[in-house]
């Protein structure tokens, strides 16, 4: 069958699959499914963070006059600002009591607030009694706070000129962007490509496969199903991305996105390449999954297959992730060349390097492999499921041929 007719047949199959999937009630659950854990995660994460920031840091009871404690609090405030929001030990003041030992003992037993240590005579002979080790970070923080509280000179003012990015920060942040991009790509591919394992079960169980195989090439069936699922995935991603952007716009500062340093190719191209590499990754892994899943006849068999193929995906991601730190090293090039890890490796490259020609080459390479894997999967399906062609293995045919000749 000619290519245009094969593509038209794939379109008919794909349109049916896409419509049947998107118009089903299950698709709504599919769209909402990933939003629930995120929502719950954000909710509990926010509450947890708030609780943690208030409760996790130890409380030090400072036995001092209000004036002395004011200096300590001021010094602590300065240090807290210098730590980019990092938590410092919390401090609460108590008036000195006549029996110091009894006061220390009483405070350490107190639950209101739960005291971890008691600091006595902060500006004379400071003594700390509590559960801290002498070399702990908490004790070091208290030392710094006291030192700053006793310093007479104010903190010098520094004239700051802000640049958008320096080489050092850009390299670091692009590395993070590369890994985040890879991680997102992996997550989406993992989430969506697995569905292709069971794509032919419906046709097999309904006996529709015979009708399809008599009318169109198996390649067209596979191609149609693959692109239908890709389209469905893109619908899902569009919905989830819209929800994420909406959530950021509602919950975060409007400058958050603008403040993110751009990847090497710039944000618009990075987003475009992200979509393109998702599509290629999905098509590559999906074609392989479709081929593997097509061998299964029942849902149980598909379930049995899903674990090893998921593990294979994890290995591919780990390979690409390991290569991200050295895109021009042998590992990086190997990950970019190996078809299944290529989209992951190339997306990381887009974050770190501005050159565009490797992406054109990579997309063409990946497309070639999609076609090859699909062809192989279709051939395997025809041979093993439709029982087409010679059922004898080539070596058996060869041995039979030689015996006939003899």
């Amino acid at each position, binding site marked *: *069958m000619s290519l245009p*007719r094969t593509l*038209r047949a794939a379109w*008919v199959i794909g349109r049916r699959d896409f419509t049947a999937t998107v118009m089903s009630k299950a698709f709504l659950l599919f769209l909402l499914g990933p939003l629930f854990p995120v929502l719950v995660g954000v909710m509990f994460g926010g509450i947890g963070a708030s609780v943690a920031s208030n409760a996790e840091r130890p409380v030090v009871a400072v036995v001092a006059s209000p004036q002395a404690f004011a200096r300590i609090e001021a010094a602590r405030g300065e240090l807290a600002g210098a730590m980019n929001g990092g938590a410092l030990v919390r401090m609460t003041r108590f008036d000195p009591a006549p029996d110091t030992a009894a006061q220390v003992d009483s405070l350490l037993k107190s639950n209101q607030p739960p005291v971890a240590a008691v600091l006595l005579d902060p500006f004379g002979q400071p003594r700390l009694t509590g559960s801290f080790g002498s070399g702990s970070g908490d004790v070091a923080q208290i030392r710094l706070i006291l030192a700053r509280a006793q310093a007479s000179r104010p903190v010098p003012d520094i004239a700051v000129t802000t640049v958008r990015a320096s080489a050092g920060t850009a390299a670091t942040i692009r590395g993070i962007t590369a890994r985040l991009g890879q991680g997102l790509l992996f997550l989406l591919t993992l989430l969506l490509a697995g569905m292709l394992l069971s794509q032919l079960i419906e046709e097999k169980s309904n006996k*529709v496969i015979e*009708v399809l195989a*008599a009318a169109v090439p198996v390649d067209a069936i596979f191609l149609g199903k693959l692109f239908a699922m890709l389209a469905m995935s893109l619908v899902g991603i569009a919905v989830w991305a819209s929800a994420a952007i909406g959530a950021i716009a509602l919950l975060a500062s409007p400058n958050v996105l603008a403040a993110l340093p751009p990847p090497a190719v710039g944000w618009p191209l990075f987003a475009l390449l992200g979509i393109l590499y998702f599509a290629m990754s999905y098509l590559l892994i999906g074609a392989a999954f479709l081929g593997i899943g097509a061998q299964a006849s029942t849902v149980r068999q598909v379930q049995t297959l899903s674990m090893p193929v998921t593990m294979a995906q994890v290995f591919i991601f780990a390979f690409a992730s390991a290569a991200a730190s050295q895109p021009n090293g042998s590992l990086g090039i190997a990950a970019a060349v190996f078809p299944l890890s290529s989209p992951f490796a190339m997306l990381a490259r887009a974050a770190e390097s501005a050159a565009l020609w490797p992406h054109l080459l990579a997309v063409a390479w990946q497309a070639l492999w999609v076609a090859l894997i699909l062809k192989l999967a279709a051939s395997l399906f025809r041979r093993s499921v439709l*029982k087409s062609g010679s*059922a*004898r293995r080539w070596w058996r045919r060869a041995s039979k041929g030689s015996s006939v000749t003899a």
Partner: protein
Amino acid sequence: MGEAAVEAWDLVKDFGDKRAVDGVSLRVPAGSICGILGPNGAGKTTTIRMLLGIIDPSSGTRRLLGSDRPLDAAHEVGYLPEERGLYPAMTAREAIAFMGALRGLPLKEGRRRATDMLAERGLSDWADRPIRTLSKGMAQTVQLLGTLVHHPRLIVLDEPFSGLDAINQEKLESLIRAQAEAGATIIFSTHVIAHAERLCERIAIIAAGRVAFEGAVDDARDRLRPMVRLRTRASDGAWRSALPPGARQNGRDFTFELPEGGPEPLLRALIDGGAGIDTLSIERPGLHDAFVAIAGEAVVREMAQEVPA
């Protein structure tokens, strides 16, 4: 003989070590109704699947509507498989239109034709119902309409009568005749000989993976000698020597194949021998008898070959 719609030469199909089809050759003239007959497991469905390009033969060649690659002619072929299959969530109209679209018919035109076809069969009320809500007979009708919606030149029906009640079998026979009158070539497989006898001009009898007979229905019937049914008044006499050795006797009733010389010498011998003919009929064998004899011989031959020397 006119142009061939389907031709096959020495088609062989092996499944592992089992040979399902063993050198099938056949020719179906365009515009004819051809029945592929054979006992269960004879290789009818495998042959059809090879002819249509669903599976490739292990060896041999076939040509479908002039094309060596059957799927190239798929847009002119309608196929009803033995194991019926439709998407249960699809509506009847969409299922018919989808099957047409698979064969290159635009979806919009397919929907229009599906609406008309369902209306012609009084199924308009079911057009927008999902297939899973239809009865088995209705679902079969929907699949048959999907097979025909794109007006194929070649219609291949694998066991089309199975699962249908007598009324629907009659309707299907009429439909097949109508399609043939409209110029389509029709091939159908069956193991119920009566349908083939009523519908077919040509038949191919497949037994044990081989074509045991291919040709006109009359030629198949002519492979057997006419049967003579005789009732005599005399129970014995010289006339008994006129009966062939295999004649079956039940009282004064005798059944035997008409001897080589034909009816006249037989009649003369019976009269001269004093048989006292009460009734005598000479019946041409039906396709059923021919099928049993031809397929039976082939199976016996196959079994004889399998017995080790």
